[in-house]
């Protein structure tokens, strides 16, 4: 969609540089205007990580670069970035100025690649797409320009899997969510290349991407391009799981699908699921009386203004495990039209009992517009307490509707996030705690 946007909840293509920040000892280099890095960091990023924020090298385009081109400056900044910053992988991402003036970034970075420097480039330009789509291009750039060149062996390692799930920083809980996914996959016997964050080994892990037996892409659209690319490049089949697996039902489903796809011993996978579910439902049972008996009102209806993966993952979880019925789902990630039908089908079949559910789904990145619709629709549920899964933009709306707000989308602002995540069994319990923490905190 290309219309105006009020209350943006993602950033531009250049925003994919945050994915480079999330790789251990990864260093982004921005070939862009002077303010671009800060703009990205302000909406997706709390803190600057290893070499993001004001540490990230940048060519800081000025008028003469726009007129005469910025290649010389790029060469100088890259050359010195290697000297100044202790990095293992340098990722050049270009902004609008370089794209419009037509700098030959491939030629400049090619010179460094010829010297076998660990550097890749992605020619973006902020206007090319949002950062969801750009994340896939960044993954492929690293695979093609770095992994392919520096990987040590072509042999497939049994049980090794590459996972493409949360987009670092765009998913505010990326760190915890990736940890959660890695944990359950490791527990059923796989060796996991999680690629980003503290649970990844960094570039040495990236270099084993070609050795994986298969790939997993989590979410309805992001990560698919990388998975498809790897299918052709290294003959790796891939499994798509269409949303974040939150809580027991979805984590068990995820693990069964993965187990079958990977050809793991079914009994062992089931044994693990049984053990985890037992622990999980013991907690659920403990709190069930609260849910059933609490006399002052707990959420009955959930709206989300979130991306497609979150919206689906949370809707399934809340409906089936907490009895909170999804109201209209406002999906803000500008998901391409060709994937929208797929998302709609998932929503239709959201009930574990096989009942068709008629959930209104609105695809619109203009969240200002969605907020107006939400407010209007909420008038139908004046007798119900409402939960909003949204962002910092929705704080005002939530207070207007006396609704509870759990922030699951950028901008985050009202929450500090370190390794909190909602994936897996433990993530489901965490989600329940966080939701009811917000509910109960409203009572005086």
């Amino acid at each position, binding site marked *: 969609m*290309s219309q105006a946007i009020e209350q943006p909840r993602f950033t531009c293509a250049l925003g994919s540089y945050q994915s480079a920040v999330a790789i251990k000892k990864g260093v982004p280099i921005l070939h862009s205007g002077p303010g671009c890095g800060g703009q990205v960091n*302000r909406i997706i990023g709390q803190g600057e990580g290893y070499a993001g924020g004001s540490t990230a090298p940048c060519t800081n385009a000025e008028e003469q670069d726009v007129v005469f081109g910025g290649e010389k400056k790029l060469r100088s900044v890259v050359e010195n970035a290697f000297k100044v910053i202790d990095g293992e992988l340098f990722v050049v991402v270009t902004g609008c100025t370089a794209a419009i003036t037509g700098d030959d970034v491939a030629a400049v970075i090619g010179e460094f690649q010829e010297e076998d420097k660990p550097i890749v480039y992605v020619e973006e330009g902020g206007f090319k797409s949002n950062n969801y789509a750009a994340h896939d291009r960044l993954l492929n750039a690293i695979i093609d320009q770095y992994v392919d060149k520096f990987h040590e062996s072509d042999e497939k390692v049994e049980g090794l899997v590459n996972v493409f799930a949360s987009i670092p920083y765009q998913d505010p809980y990326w760190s915890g969510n990736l940890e959660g996914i890695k944990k359950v996959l490791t527990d059923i016997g796989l060796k996991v290349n999680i690629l980003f964050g503290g649970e990844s080994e960094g570039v040495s892990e990236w270099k084993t991407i070609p050795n994986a037996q298969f790939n997993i892409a989590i979410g309805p659209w992001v990560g698919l391009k990388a998975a498809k690319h790897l299918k052709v490049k290294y003959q790796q089949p891939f499994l798509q799981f269409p949303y974040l697996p939150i809580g027991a039902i979805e984590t068990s489903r995820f693990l069964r699908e993965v187990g079958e796809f990977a050809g793991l011993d079914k009994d062992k996978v089931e044994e693990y699921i049984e053990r985890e579910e037992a622990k999980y439902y013991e907690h659920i049972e403990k709190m069930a009386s609260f849910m059933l008996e609490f006399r002052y009102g707990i959420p009955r209806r959930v709206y989300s203004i979130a991306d497609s993966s979150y919206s689906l993952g949370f809707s399934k979880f809340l409906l089936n495990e907490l009895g909170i019925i999804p109201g209209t789902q406002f999906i803000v990630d500008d998901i391409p039209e060709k994937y929208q039908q797929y998302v709609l089908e998932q929503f239709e079949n959201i009930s574990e009992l096989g009942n068709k559910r008629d959930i209104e789904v609105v695809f619109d990145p203009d969240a200002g517009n969605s907020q107006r619709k939400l407010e209007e629709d909420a008038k139908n549920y004046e007798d119900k307490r409402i939960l909003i899964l949204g962002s910092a933009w929705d704080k005002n709306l939530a207070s207007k509707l006396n609704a509870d707000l759990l922030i699951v989308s950028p901008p985050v602002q009202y929450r500090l996030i370190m390794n909190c995540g909602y994936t897996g069994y433990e993530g489901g319990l965490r989600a329940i705690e966080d939701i009811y923490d917000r509910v109960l905190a409203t009572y005086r």
Partner: protein
Amino acid sequence: MPSINLAEPSVMIREKRLGTINAFTGTAAEIVQQSQDGTLRDAKRKFSQCLGCNAQQAFCQLAMIKDVAVINHAPIGCAGEFSDFNFTYRIEQDKRDLPEDIGRYFSTNIQEKDTVFGATKKLEETIKLAYERVNPKAIFITTSCASGIIGEDIESVADKATEELGIPVVTCSCEGFRSKVWTTGFDAAYHTVLRGIVKPPEKKTNKINVVNFWGSHVFDEIFERFGYEAQYIMPFASIEELEHVSEAAATVHICPSLSTYMGAGLSQLYGVPEITAPPAYGIDGTDGWLRALGKVLGKEEIAEEIIREGHEKYVPQIEKLKERFKGKKAYVTAGAAHGQALIHLLNELGFEVIGASVFHHDPIYDSEDRELDVLAHAVNTYGDVKDYRVCNKQSCELVNALIRSKPDFIMARHGGMTLWGAKLGIPTLLIGDEQFGIGYQGALNYARRIDETLDSIEFIKNFSKHSSNPYTEWWLTQEPGYFQGGRSGGCR
């Protein structure tokens, strides 16, 4: 005065208007001298890290005017700051007892095809959309690198919309590449308001314009003593208030780097006197500022009265705290004039200011009044700062400078720099509210916060022990000014 020309839609950038520079290595006295004799020269860096751009500074001044909508004519990435300013907007509403509301900001979401076929139609549609959704008193349009390079005729779109909607729709030229000095964005915002909102005076009022961010209302009490009323602009002013700022009795600055374009504009266009003494930081700074204010308002005796009371009430408390700072070495990193004011303040509190890395340097301000030179004032009062750098927010240069100078305390202004003090195990303080340090009470506020920061040494030492350093050994042994194109002679 040629620098303020409202017939031009775009403000003249600071490099050209004021001769502003981004790189310098030397002493404070040297930069003051070179500013005065016109020999100050800029340098180009061979390596650089992320800066900020003037669009952010422009937006920050425009976006919290109470009854406006702001349209950023740009790809969606340039709207990253929307939510950040909305956060500030909401918190500060609460402090001011204003009703809860969100900031109404729109991105035209320029996409690839728009860079080929043009995006003016999109801009027209967005103006309409913003008008319908918000019903604002004015609409501001901020520009971007993308809209600038594709060469949109935004001016005529704005003019047409002004006519159609019956409210001012005013452009603000703040393309990121336009100026190397991000504070040009402040000037761009003031230029926009001077050009499209402010009306010629119909009468004189007893209001004094305080051009500021969203700081606390510390001027209320002071101005009241003089029989005047503080009028804080631009965040949290209404369009109606801004229309009448030309009627004010005077304009004061909390930071000359911020607002002298507005001050000079109101003075040159409408005869509103500008208080050109350095802002009221520290006891000595407050004395001077109050005297200058008293002079402009013709009430010198009231200034003396406030000075006397201030000294009686606050100086003894500050003196006590000063004992604890004696012999300690301080380092300052900040924007320009505010950093210079901090140098003055820290000296006064008994620190030895051993160095400073400020982001840019304006050799003169729009009023062309040398009285406003905060650094000259600090140097004349307390002596030279031997290691004075203009670092353009390059954290690599700051780290090297800190490693060499080994201060006991770092005073920072602006995010992105405090981390390095902490990583090196040096207590570091950043204060967001510029008005927190104004006046005698402000000097005490600062002294207390500094004392508190020095006291949290356990945290800093532990953090330092466990933190990583992304800079190479090679870099850490170079002169901080290494990349400033051969101008590293002053490094020490």
